[in-house]
């Protein structure tokens, strides 16, 4: 596979991008990653690899991204500032670029108190916005923090996350603007269930003139059951789960609930496509990667573009 970001080519070419997510295993078996990769092949433009999500120890994101590359999939390396100081972050960016990883999503990371290492020392030496700025300076100016020159700059398409549903709402757009100003080329959002609020947020972002300064991909997660919807409403930070969605999931027989979750997801994608400023969709099917192909197909987003 060539070492060009497919995600970047789709977005710069004016296409509606599709990305998905792949959680690495809690173990050292590469086949788990490769199997997930097969289910996503030709269904999406790039695959995010999470970085010890929910602060649970897993196979390293860089390693899993590298495995994806061996089978021709364009990976998006998620990197959290929770576990690495500025030396390690910059070093890993150089390493990722050397491995041909061309997309990085710069994140704060879930707090370690929620994971299986609550006794860990959280690092948080940089925040996610500073991290975006550091990667941009490495790439565009060939310099690391402090001003030293790099012998070769990394070639990285820079991503950041946005959560339109956390509080305070007004500040969420300021924060998005800061991320874009810091150098984010693309934005992937938290999962969207409350589309009304999401549209309001996008409107505020458009008013600030920032939606054309970065590619914004709306995040969606297919629900498997009403229980999952309730769990996300009550237990997952930063998720806005309207009661109508829970009622809708509860309103169908048990054997149709997964299908209903997919319906809701496809409808959300269709509505997202109508929102000015939305340039793609990020499908986070948590440990349910096999359903992504169907969602993409039913949303009318196949076939995906192919490049030489």
């Amino acid at each position, binding site marked *: 596979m060539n070492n060009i970001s497919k995600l970047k080519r789709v977005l710069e070419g004016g296409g509606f991008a599709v990305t998905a997510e792949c959680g690495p295993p809690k173990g050292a078996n590469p086949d788990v990653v490769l199997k997930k990769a097969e289910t996503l092949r030709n269904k999406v433009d790039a695959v995010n690899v999470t970085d010890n999500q929910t602060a649970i120890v897993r196979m390293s994101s860089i390693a899993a991204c590298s495995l994806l590359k061996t089978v021709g999939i364009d990976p998006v390396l998620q990197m959290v500032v*929770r576990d690495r100081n*500025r030396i390690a972050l910059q070093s890993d960016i150089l390493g990722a670029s050397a491995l041909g990883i061309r997309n990085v999503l710069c994140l*704060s*990371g*879930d*707090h370690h*108190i*929620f994971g299986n290492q609550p006794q860990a020392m*959280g690092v*948080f*030496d*940089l*925040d*996610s*916005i*500073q991290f975006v*700025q*550091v990667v941009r300076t490495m790439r565009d100016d060939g310099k690391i*923090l402090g001003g030293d020159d790099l012998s070769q700059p990394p070639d990285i398409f820079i991503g950041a*996350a*946005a*959560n339109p549903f*956390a*509080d*305070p709402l*007004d*500040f969420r757009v*300021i*924060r998005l*603007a*800061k991320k874009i*100003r*810091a150098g984010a080329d693309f934005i992937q959002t*938290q999962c969207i269930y409350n589309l009304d609020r999401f549209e309001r947020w996008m409107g505020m972002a458009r008013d600030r003139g920032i939606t054309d300064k970065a590619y914004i991909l709306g995040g969606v997660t297919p629900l498997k059951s009403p229980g999952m919807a309730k769990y996300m409403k009550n237990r997952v*930070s*930063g998720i806005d789960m309207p009661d109508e969605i829970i009622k809708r999931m509860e309103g169908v027989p048990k054997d149709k609930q997964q299908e209903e979750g997919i319906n809701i997801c496809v409808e959300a994608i269709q509505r997202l496509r109508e929102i000015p400023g939305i340039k793609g969709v990020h499908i986070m099917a948590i440990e349910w990667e096999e359903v992504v192909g169907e969602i993409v197909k039913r949303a009318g987003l196949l076939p995906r573009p192919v490049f030489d």
Partner: protein
Amino acid sequence: MITGEQKPIDEIREMISPYKRILVLGCASCVAECAAGGEKEAAMLASTLRIAAKMRKENVLIKEKTLDRQCVRDFIISLDDIIGKYDVVLSLGCGAGVQAVAEIFPEVPIIPALNTGFLGETKDQGYWVESCLGCGDCMLYHFGGICPLARCSKQLLNGPCGGSMDGRCEIDPDVECAWHLIVDRLTKFGALDRLENIYPPKDWSRKQGKGPRKIVREDQ
């Protein structure tokens, strides 16, 4: 104020178990304010240890004394006349107090009776909260007087993470989101534009970059 909490009594008893003559040493400053190591607490701890020793029929001498400040040499040297009577000092000072006493009396073991906590403020009776990391480069001006380094669980300098809801931190509903407070406060002062700045990475060398920090004032 530096906060402290008394260690579990079993841990204290284990540490002092080899000794027969014990001085329980309180400190009347910060740890007295947080009700962990002042005169009253020193007396209570000494009494508890005496009762425990008596119940086990151990022949142990336990006395208590409280210094105005255990971290200041001028106060510590007042122990000069009595320290020879003891074979151990059980200090209720903060970690700085324990070390200061140990440095001045190197021949006597000094054992900590407290776990030293944080730099905080007294919110209410029996309620202390961390509010300062002692970073060495105060940024409170920029953040409306609320420190995101000490009070945001991710130490973010450029706005809240994606987890805050209804003004509460995702790590615990009892914890206020520092960023929510900052945004509210700066909005009230009409200074929200301060947060449009991208604050650069913190210079941590002022906190921990060069070993233990020192202040030397030639004019003192």
